[in-house]
């Protein structure tokens, strides 16, 4: 069974090729079968492969192979090879599973779109690229998948190409992430120059032997890799592309945010953890970037009006949590949050899509309200997602993963009280903006007449994802609640465990810590209810204060990063490229001009008068005589 691994990415790629090359001749029904079936088949295959893999686990922690040699010249070798271990299998399961549900949902969401075939072709390519990224056994192939998801995000964000704004958002996404990618590429250059290998496993082994902890080269490589991860995962300072990426169809947002693309940075750092542990300074930077991002994005999410932008900022914020966990060495906690986040964020986006369709493509939450009764399925599933995002205790998956992260930050030697405090404040903000959404959209007076009711292809993914959002947390239950360390045991085959605190007083610390986090989340929900339920008088009092207004505007604009980058990069670029004239060409024009004017002055002497010529001959002769003497 295990040797079928290459078919996991090959199926979506095949779907893409079929849809692109033959798609024009296929009926819509056949298109659906190919588009959804390829990812579904891939998901099924992953599940089938997971069984023997899990059975063989302690003895056979990884399984790798190679299809063919991609590049092998002058000492540089990179194969079309895969490396399946606990980490990549987890990623693969999430990508194909959640990806399949999103595809299924899309059949209904995109049913009336003229670009139906194009949509599924791009989506399949997206899933295929992401699978290549996580299954690659060498960094060059990983980079192929890395750029591939960037490309697909470009294509899908700009999917509705008639609106130039969508094109601008798509270009922004690609160019910003490519800036990070280029740093990543330079990191690969440095890594290859030092270690002469691009194999992920080999590089980490060699680096551990060759580079002392904290050495300059290790720090440089890790910092460059981090720059790539920051770009892809939309962390500060390269987070600006993600809110605009909402220009794409809603299933695309779900795919970008939940299963693919933005989690690539998290995966990269976890995959190359062997390099990052050699650079404690960079690890610290990862944690700080994560904390800063989760707070900045949390504040921004508070004041957005567009339902999808709220969710976008929420994604940035939640990825911030993952970075925070990575930064303190809590690899498994980060991946656990990735898993739960994939479920509830996909759910939230898909439910939001259903809401948007219900109110005639309206995305402004100030023009929604009271949708609770219209479609209970959407309401209850959205509520489940929001609860999981907020980390409501015990019943939601988000609680377990967020709690794990914050406990790791608290207890890890690389963590710290400040980082922890940031995380807790973030938890409060998360609950606040999540329930602001819930109360705005589903409660209060009805502002738009809902028209569309979700069909089966919409309801199934919503219900499945809601169930997952509530239950996947049970794979890892902290020791205070009766330990179930299934997830950390599983991942320990690929990633080192953060040292396990065993002491008794630690346990009471953990319980205290948990209480604080839980209180923060519940406080967020309570404040949201106080502000957004009922008459909303409290909200008006706060909003009318001038300082609050100024902050709200700053947060609404995402802390002004866009304006800053416009001044720093976009304007100078346009200033330089405003004129398409080539400076060197002017130089050659000057040369040509000089020749032409020399020609002119010489022709002036050609008067056509014989006497003038005779005089010049005489003068010339005289001159030569004088010179000779």
């Amino acid at each position, binding site marked *: 069974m295990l040797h079928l691994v290459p078919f996991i990415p090959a199926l979506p790629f095949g779907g893409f090729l079929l849809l692109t090359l033959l798609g024009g001749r296929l009926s819509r029904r056949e298109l659906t079968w190919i588009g959804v079936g390829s990812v579904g088949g891939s998901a099924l295959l992953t599940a089938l492969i997971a069984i023997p893999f899990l059975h063989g686990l302690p003895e056979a922690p990884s399984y790798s192979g190679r299809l063919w040699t991609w590049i092998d010249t002058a000492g540089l070798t990179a194969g079309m090879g895969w490396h399946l271990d606990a980490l990549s299998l987890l990623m693969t399961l999430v990508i194909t599973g959640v990806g399949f549900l999103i595809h299924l949902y899309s059949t209904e969401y995109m049913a009336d779109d003229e670009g139906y075939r194009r949509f599924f072709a791009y989506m399949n390519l997206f899933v295929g690229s992401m699978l290549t990224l996580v299954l690659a056994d060498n960094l060059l192939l990983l980079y192929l998948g890395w750029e591939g998801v960037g490309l697909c995000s470009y294509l899908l964000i700009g999917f509705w190409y008639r609106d130039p704004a969508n094109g601008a958002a798509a270009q922004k996404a690609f160019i910003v992430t490519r800036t990070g990618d280029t740093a990543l590429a330079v990191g690969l250059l440095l890594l290859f120059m030092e270690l002469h290998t691009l194999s992920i496993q080999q590089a980490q082994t060699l680096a551990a032997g060759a580079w002392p902890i904290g050495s300059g080269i290790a720090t440089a490589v890790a910092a460059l890799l981090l720059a790539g991860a920051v770009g892809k995962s939309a962390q500060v300072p390269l987070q600006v592309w993600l809110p605009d990426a909402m220009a794409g169809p809603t299933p695309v947002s779900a795919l970008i945010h939940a299963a693919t693309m933005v989690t690539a940075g998290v995966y990269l750092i976890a995959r190359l953890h062997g390099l990052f542990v050699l650079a404690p300074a960079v690890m610290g930077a990862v944690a700080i970037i994560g904390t800063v991002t989760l707070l900045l994005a949390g504040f921004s999410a508070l004041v957005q009006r567009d339902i999808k932008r709220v969710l976008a900022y929420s994604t940035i914020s939640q990825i911030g949590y993952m970075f925070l966990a990575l930064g303190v060495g809590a690899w498994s906690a980060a991946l656990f949050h990735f898993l739960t986040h994939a479920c509830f964020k996909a759910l939230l986006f898909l439910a939001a899509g259903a809401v948007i369709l219900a109110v005639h493509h309206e995305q402004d939450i100030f023009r929604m309200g009271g949708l609770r009764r219209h479609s209970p399925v959407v309401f209850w599933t959205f509520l489940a997602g929001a609860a999981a995002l907020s980390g409501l205790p015990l019943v939601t998956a988000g609680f377990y993963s967020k709690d794990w992260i914050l406990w790791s930050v608290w207890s890890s030697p690389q963590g710290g009280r400040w980082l922890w405090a940031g995380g807790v404040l973030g938890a409060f903000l998360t609950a606040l903006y999540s329930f602001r959404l819930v109360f705005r959209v589903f409660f209060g007076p009805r502002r738009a007449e809902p028209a569309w009711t979700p069909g089966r292809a919409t309801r199934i993914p919503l219900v499945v994802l809601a169930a997952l959002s509530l239950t996947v947390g049970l794979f890892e239950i902290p020791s205070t609640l009766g330990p179930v360390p299934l997830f950390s045991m599983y991942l320990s085959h690929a990633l080192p465990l953060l040292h396990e605190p065993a002491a008794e007083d630690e346990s009471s610390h953990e319980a205290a810590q948990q209480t604080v986090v839980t209180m923060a989340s519940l406080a967020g929900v309570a404040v949201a209810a106080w502000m957004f339920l009922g008459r909303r008088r409290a909200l008006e009092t706060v909003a009318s204060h001038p300082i609050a207004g100024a902050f709200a505007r700053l947060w609404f604009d995402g802390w002004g990063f866009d304006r800053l980058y416009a001044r720093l990069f976009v304007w100078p670029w346009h200033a330089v490229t405003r004129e398409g004239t080539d400076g060197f060409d002017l130089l050659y024009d000057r040369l040509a001009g000089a020749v032409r004017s020399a020609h002119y002055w010489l*022709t*002036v002497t*050609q*008067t*056509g*008068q*014989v*006497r003038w010529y*005779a005089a010049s001959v*005489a003068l010339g002769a005289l001159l030569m005589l004088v010179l000779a003497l």
Partner: protein
Amino acid sequence: MTAHALIVAMILFVLGLAGLLARRNIVYMLLSIEIMLNAASLAFIAAGSRWAAPDGQVMFFFILAFAAAEASVALAILLQLSDRFRTVDADAVSEMRH
């Protein structure tokens, strides 16, 4: 003796040059050129007698023959000019201007 002859040759040459530059009538210009050629011939002969070498007189004959050839070509051009432009004014004919 040689010095005198050379001075005469120089005067003749300058006269010829002045005539060439001053006159606009092509006939006079041709005459001036002849004078200049003769000045050169005189200088050659003087130099030949000074060094007691026959080369000076050889050069004189050479210039004589050359002057005859030049005059025949020049007169032919002159005829053509006066025929086409109805003038013998050199300045009026500047067809070869750039």
